[in-house]
Structure formats: C-alpha cells, structure tokens
C-alpha cells in the first residue's frame, strides 16, 4: 500500500540553525500539507500546498517557514532560523486530486529537537 514517508525520523539542531524536513507524498497525490504537534499538545495545521504554491497557511507559519516541491516527488519544509519553541513532531500529509474531503494520509513524522 502506498504511504507517505518522511526523513529524517529525528533531527537535532542548535537554536538559530536552518533545518529542512523532507517528505515524499503518495505518488499520484496533488495536495500536500504540513502539521506539527508540540509534545502533549494537539496536532496543528501549518500549511497546505497545491499546484506549486501555498494554498493556505496558519498564523504559526510565519516568515521563518517555507515549503517547496523541488522535484516531482519531494515536498520540503524549511525553518530558516530555529527557535526552542519549534521543537515538535512535524507531520507531512497528502491527498488525491478529488474533493477536499478525500482522506489525508499522514507520514510517520519527524521529531525536531532544538537545543
């Protein structure tokens, strides 16, 4: 069964450093999302991406964040200058081209630890 994959599974970085989290969505999917979950908190929407541009973003997704689909398979989340409060699990999700209610499939997540 096709699945969303994410690398790395765990990333440790120093405050102020740039990180890039990588995702490979399911191959025929066209809509891509990033969510995050701070430890003990709810899963929060960050950004949605379609047709090579951002569709929606939350207030969390400020100028320090950017997303890119550099080729036909990868979908990346970049944090330019990490802060301690960026420590969280980051989940990538993708869905098919159909209706917005089509299932979003989530990857296993990348645990980001900012020291």
């Amino acid at each position, binding site marked *: 069964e096709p699945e969303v994959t994410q690398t790395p599974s765990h990333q440790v970085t120093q405050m102020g450093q740039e990180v890039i989290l990588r995702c490979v969505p399911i191959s025929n999917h066209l809509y891509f999302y990033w969510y995050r979950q701070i430890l003990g908190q709810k*899963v929060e929407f960050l950004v*949605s991406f379609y047709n090579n541009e951002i569709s929606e973003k939350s207030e969390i997704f400020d100028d320090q964040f950017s997303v890119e689909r550099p080729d036909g398979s990868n979908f990346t989340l970049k944090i330019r200058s990490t802060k301690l409060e960026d420590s969280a699990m980051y989940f990538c999700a993708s869905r098919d081209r159909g209706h917005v*209610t089509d299932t979003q499939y989530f990857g296993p*997540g990348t645990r980001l630890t900012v020291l």
Partner: protein
Amino acid sequence: DQQVKQNSPSLSVQEGRISILNCDYTNSMFDYFLWYKKYPAEGPTFLISISSIKDKNEDGRFTVFLNKSAKHLSLHIVPSQPGDSAVYFCAASEAHGGSQGNLIFGKGTKLSVKP
C-alpha cells in the same frame, strides 16, 4: 482558541465493551468531521468521517454520531479490542468554505482497552 475540544485526555475500557470517545466543536462553519487514530512513533491514521448532512456513519466496529445542534460528535467502538489502544484525534474542516481541507484537531483521547 480551541475550536475542537476533546475533554477526556484518557479512557480505559474492558475488552469486548463499548468505547465512547467524545468531541465538541465551536466553529459553525465546520461541515466535515473525522476521527484519526495514532499509535506511538507513527503518524495519524484515518479511521472514519462524517459529513454535516448526516448524523451517523458506520464502518464495521466504528460508528460516528454527529449532533449539529449541540456541536458534538462521538466515536463508538463496539466491541473494543486491545489493538484499539491508541490516541484518538477528532478533527474538523470547512469542506465547502474554499478551504483546501486543512484539518483542525482536538488534543486527543488516549484509549486503553484492557484484556
């Protein structure tokens, strides 16, 4: 600003009995509701959904009930099995509001099913 609330952080149920997980929402624009299940070290996995035009949706052992007037939904699992032990997230979206389907999650309820 909790638009989706799961007020019970945990629930313990005996194997074979019914598990009832509850969720409340505040945003009247939500018209599509989902339940995701999450095991440790994995991403959320879609379980079942319901559109606001329905009040019940059933899939095997899982049934979701929606009470729009009360802005309340619940997930029933009958019979509960030890393998159902996981964190269950309620999520909502504005499927017809121009959204690309970004999901608003609750904080989750940890279900433990005891043999």
